[in-house]
């Protein structure tokens, strides 16, 4: 698809709507408008001009450059899932409080890390105890989902401060599993 041409000159802009989206967690700004029945979408220098037709509640047809592309959409709460040419994307409106869940470790302060599971699953093994010293990349917890074991590791050297889960617990990507405190530098 090379139909996003460079910005064409001329054509007075009519009412333009600007959206701040998160696409798979990454901020994207897009502006859209219609000109003589043609839908115009613009991101930075790139512009798409297309005829858009609704096929069903979940399906749009975009026609441009002699091509017809079906785009499928499904809303689920805040997010809209979109499929283009067999690729899926999750799009949501950008709001400051929407973070990026599932990225694993989160720095709570300079001194401690909250380790999360990158996906929903069941805790099958806890490899450390509270107060234990751990080294970077050491396995802390094993979470199993769909019969696949995933070793959750620490990103820092430190001490296990708090274990929030037990073997057999179901976890998601939101809830912290373990807190690791950075070792205070020896004097």
């Amino acid at each position: 698809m090379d139909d996003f041409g460079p910005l064409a000159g001329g054509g007075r802009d009519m009412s333009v709507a600007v959206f701040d989206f998160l696409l798979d967690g990454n901020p994207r700004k897009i502006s859209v408008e219609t000109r003589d029945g043609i839908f115009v979408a613009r991101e930075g220098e790139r512009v798409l001009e297309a005829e858009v037709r609704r096929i069903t509640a979940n399906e749009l047809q975009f026609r441009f450059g002699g091509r017809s592309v079906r785009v499928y959409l499904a809303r689920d709460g805040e997010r809209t899932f979109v499929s283009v040419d067999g690729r899926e994307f999750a799009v949501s409106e950008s709001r400051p409080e929407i973070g990026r869940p599932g990225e694993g470790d989160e720095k709570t302060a300079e001194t401690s890390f909250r380790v999360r599971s990158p996906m929903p699953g069941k805790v099958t093994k806890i490899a450390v105890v509270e107060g234990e010293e751990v080294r970077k990349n050491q396995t802390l917890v094993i979470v199993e989902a769909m019969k696949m074991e995933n070793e959750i590791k620490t990103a820092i050297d430190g001490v296990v401060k708090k274990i929030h889960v037990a073997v057999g617990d179901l976890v998601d990507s939101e809830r912290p599993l373990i807190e690791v405190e950075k070792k205070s530098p020896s004097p």
Partner: protein
Amino acid sequence: MFGKILIANRGEIAVRVIKACREMGIGSVAVYSEVDAAGLHVRLADEAVPVGPPPAAESYLDMDRILEAARVTGAEAIHPGYGFLSENAAFARLCEERGVVFIGPNSKALELVGDKVRARQTMEKAGIPTVPGMTSVSTSLEEFRAAARALGYPVMVKASAGGGGKGMRIVCDEDGLVPALEAGRREAKSAFGDDSVYLEKYIEEPRHVEFQVLADNRGHTVHLSERECSIQRRHQKIVEETPSPALDPELRARMGETAVRAMRAAGYNNAGTVEFLLDKDRHFYFLEVNARIQVEHPVTELTTGVDLVRQQILIASGADLSLRQEDLLPRGHAIECRIYAEDPKTNFLPSPGRIAFLREPKGPGIRFDSGVYEGFEVPVYYDPILAKLIVWAEDREAALRRMSAALDDCVILGIHTTAGFLKDVVDHPEFRAGRATTSFIGKFFPSWGRGDGEEDRERLALAAVAYEALARTSGPKGWPGRDRKKDRATPWTTLGRWRAGGET
């Protein structure tokens, strides 16, 4: 013939068997765990029986509960599908004892081939080439160490009760041995309820070629040609095809004849698959017998025209196999892609959750065996397989093009799936050239992310969401605006004269 069959499985394979039962005029009984009450198999079966809590060990693997479900519903036979109890000889024996027909091999043959170590011994005795490895399982670390040294690293940890890549680990040096054994044992225990493992020499860059076999209860045995299953991730097949680009008629005949000989040596009946590794020099080694219907069985069905599940049921009911080897002439080319609930962008992390939208691909030569539907919540407890997309065409090139287009047409929204990744796999020049070995994914897809044209696809996705947002808020004609937001100050609420474009 049976009046009623219980299907001791879930997902797409349970659906597949239920459909075969319906065609044959046989009643079907589904079983389900607590999280699967709304499963597609439960919706389609004539009857459904709950068999326990979500963990498979307490439901789908609970032999007593499954047999009790068969008893109360009066099912005369149990189809185990793949995974779960399908290769559990104790279960097959229990069925035999209780007078329920197990739709699969007899318990003795199952026990033999299910024990990978004994199977190897049997095959060696029958003069069938095998991969060098330990001839017995062990729990002694010293024995493992000695065996690994004797075989020479790299070696492979394999679960004795194994299958589907569960419990398998490649070990490159002695330091890696203990963790690999531990992980292999744990995974094997959770997948099969048996934690015995053994070591095999790791053959580098082989192809994985398997032969489908059918044998009736009187020993009449035929093969239905091969399936090439070299495209694997984590030792799990993801793309399969037949015929194999690596075989010529001479090698096919030789391997097919060996597969039939292997099954006879094992005293095998019903449907089964003999797996071989094929090395660079076209030497083949017996790997194992998969004593069940396999995930990838549809490609064989499409090229041979034989309904394998129907054949399984016929054989189990005592019918003689009517197929003769000389009549089994495959036609055209078939490919299967397994669509998993995994996120290829995050190294294939499992992606359970609710399917918000589903559009199944359709068209000439396209088959979609699915275990899910729109609105279904994919649970965390089981295999990530959602569906299988299978295509048939006159030749390999046409089949590849058909698969590529059908993957575009397969839309599953709400969870991550491997569909987009699979399209890149089937479009890859190395795969298209028919040169892929089992190291293909590691070599050409060490990671997967934004490919060619991805930015434009992303932008089109954004444009579509913007279009929808406008349609929803300004709501021109007929668009109900399901999730209309409250009067939030949004930039587009001012667009009173927005109209939907392209009504030409």
